[in-house]
């Protein structure tokens, strides 16, 4: 990539970052050096505002490692962001599909992760 990648939560920075293709306008969340729709190189990295709508939820009650078990139950959520891409994060245990949410950042099993709460 021509530019340095913008740090996001996957590398411990308090940010959600996505990519936008300058050629076709496609938005993608998983970082790549090209657009996965048209193949154009160097999609532009942008910081998301952390707001979105709950698409799906699953409350994990059975975890597989000592580190994650310490957090049980934790709610895995899929969020349709205001910008238009979908992402996975954690959320309050009482979130419902369709809820408007906003991200903060939390610690989980020694990592920084996005944590969604109902927007007020």
């Amino acid at each position, binding site marked *: 990539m021509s530019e340095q990648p913008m740090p996001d939560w*996957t590398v411990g920075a308090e940010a959600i970052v996505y990519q936008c293709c300058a050629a076709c306008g496609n938005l993608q*969340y*998983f*970082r790549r050096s090209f657009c996965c729709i048209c193949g154009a190189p160097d999609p532009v990295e942008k910081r998301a505002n952390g707001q979105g709508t709950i*698409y*799906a*939820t*699953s*409350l*994990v*009650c*059975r*975890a*597989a*490692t000592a580190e*994650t078990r310490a*957090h049980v*139950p*934790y709610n*895995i*959520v*899929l969020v349709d962001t205001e910008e238009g891409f*979908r*992402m*996975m*994060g*954690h959320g309050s245990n009482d979130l419902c*599909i*369709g809820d408007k949410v906003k991200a903060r950042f939390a610690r*989980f*099993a020694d*990592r920084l*992760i996005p944590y969604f709460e109902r927007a007020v």
Partner: protein
Amino acid sequence: MSFVTGVGLTPYGRHEGSSSLDLMSKAAELAITDAGLKRHQIDGVLCGYSTVSPHIMLATVFAEHFGIRPAYAHAVQVGGATGLAMTMLAHHLVEAGVVQHVLVVAGENRLTGQSRDASILALAQVGDPHYEVPLGPTIPAYYGLVASRYMHEYGVTQEDLAEFAVLMRTHALWHPGAQFNDPITVADIMASKPVALPLKLLDCCPVSDGGAAFVVSREATSDMRVRVLGCAQAHTHQHVTAAPALSELGAEIAIARAKQQAGVGMSDVRYAAVYDSFTITLAMLLEDLGLAARGEAASRVRSGYFSRNGEMPLNTHGGLLSYGHCGVGGAMAHLVETHLQMTGRAGNRQVRDASIALLHGDGGVLSSHVSMFLERVR
């Protein structure tokens, strides 16, 4: 043309002291004998993978262990769809004249060979290593997400999903090889421990030891003539974060392609073998495949439609949910049972008519799909 000429299946559950290769060998021997062949006649080998004993060349490890020197051999990996994907490849290999008899084999000591935590962790790695796995999801959580959305869009309830677990257990009661043979009720499923809500323990298939195999041949080797009518795949995504809308999942694409190739419609199908890693998987796939209208699969279960004596007998061995799930071999048991039904060898489980069967496998998080039609040729 290609025929499934022999099948082999071990009981699923605990096989203390058996390795993955042991279980593969046991199933392979059964399948080759069933086909009326000698092992030296096997000139192609396709195998799955073992999470307990991973190897970059499992097919040749197996061939050496089993004592054969095939002209064609490699492993295939598409998660739960692997068994049918291998069958599809075997069908094309014999049709193309590359080999005469392909042994399709898988087996794993997934229950006794590693801890349950290790199994859960290994399987969770189908998630994205940067954007999903650090969040601590499990396979039940990936499917729990899909379940929550499906229930929301189509008005399906947890009690509806429980019906599928009851059905599979009811069928398993009639198979001596099934891992579970105590009856369960909807109330039992509702009261079982939460795993990844809305999925509870009895909505999830177990972890099992076991092995399954079949032989796919260019010509029939006996009067058990079960032929591959048509098969097709569809792969829309890998990760649940990148999955398309519920109405655009791969099962619908794969079945449409397979129907066209086989020249049959759903009204021709007499027996169904459908992947059932979780109750939601089975509910969704039945509806995606057109075996029930949207949101109505559970009511078809309640009315007996998918029961052994119903209009569309489904997974009469008990499926992954109750026969068991040993990895790649898990869904291969569906094909073994289908073959027994099609050839009138299912004993006290025998259905009236299994002349045309539909099989469907799913890998990942509804990521990879294989649909296949088999026909009993008289």
